[in-house]
């Protein structure tokens, strides 16, 4: 029976389906089919674009049906067989008719009580590890190769003694040794040890196999060519995760760089996931800058930053440009403690650069937890493992990255 005019709201009983039918029409055929349904069965479909954005769950539950004209789809109340027969009569060329499913965020996590905020560094872990639940994870990234493309690395840092580290410099006449400190910082957050010599734990994937490609000079600047060469090297070394805490600003309305997108897509196909910072050009609340290059490529995970109260960092860029220019998710990026080149050993820093290796480290844990998940599958898993935040998707994407438990 088709429930024309039904006011019954679907009840959440653990059932997989809502009792409504999801119909995919040919592009542009939506209004015609809606009119045919009205004539054939008296079903009146509301049109989503006519509702002035009021397509809340309540709206969807109470109507006879709803037409999403721009995407060529509709929701119709009723029994699947009868709905299918009616839709086929109205539009023999309708593409798909299937029951609407309940959906939920996977990777459900324990909510953090407001009383715990702001998070603070303790004797045992930095606030970033607490926020991402890295310390309680049973995974350590063992067997997973993580590449850090940056200003190099202090290969003699005592916290990394005994770790087999593959390294190569792509900057002419400069060794891998990190003078700037940014690369050592990022490697520390992604792959720092379980027990640092003289600091709280600051690294996530403590048993991952670290690969370091130097692509930036001592002033932390470089060219696309060096970065692309570093990606090529990391993909060739079967790195499941490639963290590149660098970028260059883009402008409102800019598209993504095509060469990078080709490279990122090929890296995904080869089993390597690229993760890059959203950028620090915003000055919230006054202005928000768009996600920068190369994080604005559709095949690259774009990372924004939050502070210890899980608030959006004032500098963190937002998802203003479509088609890849969105923020994928966020990670800790204010007052982060990590490794520094000798003799300092430790340093604090802020930026989406600092947030990016948190996501890289968690991606390594996920790769260990799900050995078959590489490339696009790992990216999907990463974006399903989050804690929702009370902030716009524009600023935080799916939410705060979370380590698998």
């Amino acid at each position: 029976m088709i429930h024309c005019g039904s006011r019954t709201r679907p009840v959440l009983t653990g059932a997989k389906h809502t009792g409504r039918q999801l119909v995919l029409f040919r592009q542009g055929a939506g209004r015609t089919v809606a009119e045919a349904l009205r004539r054939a069965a008296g079903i009146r479909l509301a049109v989503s674009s006519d509702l002035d954005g009021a397509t809340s769950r309540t709206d969807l539950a109470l109507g006879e049906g709803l037409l999403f004209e721009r995407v060529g789809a509709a929701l119709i109340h009723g029994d699947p067989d009868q709905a299918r027969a009616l839709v086929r009569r109205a539009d023999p060329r309708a593409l798909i008719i299937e029951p609407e499913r309940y959906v939920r965020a996977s990777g459900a996590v324990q909510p953090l009580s407001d009383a715990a905020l702001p998070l603070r560094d303790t004797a045992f872990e930095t606030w970033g590890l607490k926020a991402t639940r890295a310390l309680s994870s049973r995974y350590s990234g063992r067997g997973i190769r993580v590449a850090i493309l940056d200003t190099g690395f202090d290969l003699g840092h005592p916290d990394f003694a005994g770790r087999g580290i593959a390294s190569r410099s792509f900057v002419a006449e400069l060794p891998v040794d990190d003078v700037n400190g940014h690369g050592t910082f990022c490697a520390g957050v992604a792959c720092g040890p379980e027990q640092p010599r003289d600091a709280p734990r600051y690294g996530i994937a403590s048993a991952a196999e670290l690969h370091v490609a130097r692509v930036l000079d001592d002033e932390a600047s470089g060219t696309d060519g060096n970065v692309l060469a570093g990606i090529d090297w990391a993909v060739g070394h079967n790195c499941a995760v490639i963290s590149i805490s660098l970028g260059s600003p883009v402008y409102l309305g800019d598209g993504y760089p095509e060469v990078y997108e080709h490279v990122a897509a090929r890296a995904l196909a080869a089993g390597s996931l690229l993760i890059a910072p959203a950028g620090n050009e915003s000055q919230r609340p006054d202005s928000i800058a768009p996600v920068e290059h190369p994080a604005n490529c559709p095949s690259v995970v774009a990372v924004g930053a939050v502070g210890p109260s899980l608030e959006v960092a004032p500098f963190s860029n937002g998802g203003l440009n479509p088609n890849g220019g969105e923020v994928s998710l966020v990670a800790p990026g204010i007052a982060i403690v990590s490794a520094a080149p000798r003799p300092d050993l430790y340093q604090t820093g802020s930026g989406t650069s600092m947030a990016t290796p948190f996501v890289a480290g968690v991606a390594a844990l996920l790769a260990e937890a799900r050995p078959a998940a590489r490339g696009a599958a790992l990216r999907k898993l990463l974006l399903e493992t989050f804690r929702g935040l009370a902030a716009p998707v524009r600023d935080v994407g799916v939410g705060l990255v979370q380590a698998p438990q």
Partner: protein
Amino acid sequence: MTYGIRRPRSQRPDASLSRVKVAIAVTDDACAHIDEVAAACRRLGLEHTSTLAGVGVLLGSVELADLPKLRTLPRVAAVEIKRQTRICALAVRRAAQDRAAALVASR
């Protein structure tokens, strides 16, 4: 609240240069024959410096005037002028070891 950054007229990419560094992505089906694409690009003026075979990219430099010709070559998917990149960090404070040591000492 404002969104985005206004592009200054003076910041059009490499407008003052006649020869520019470029990255060239070949099409997926050409990755196995990237040397042939490189040869074709060299014939059109590319000074070819390196091949990233794993990701299907050629690096080099070219006269600005030759860029449109490169873009029309068969099996060339995209040609872009290389840009400067830099880290995305704000203040980094070294010598945080005192604070780190103090935290550890509080165990």
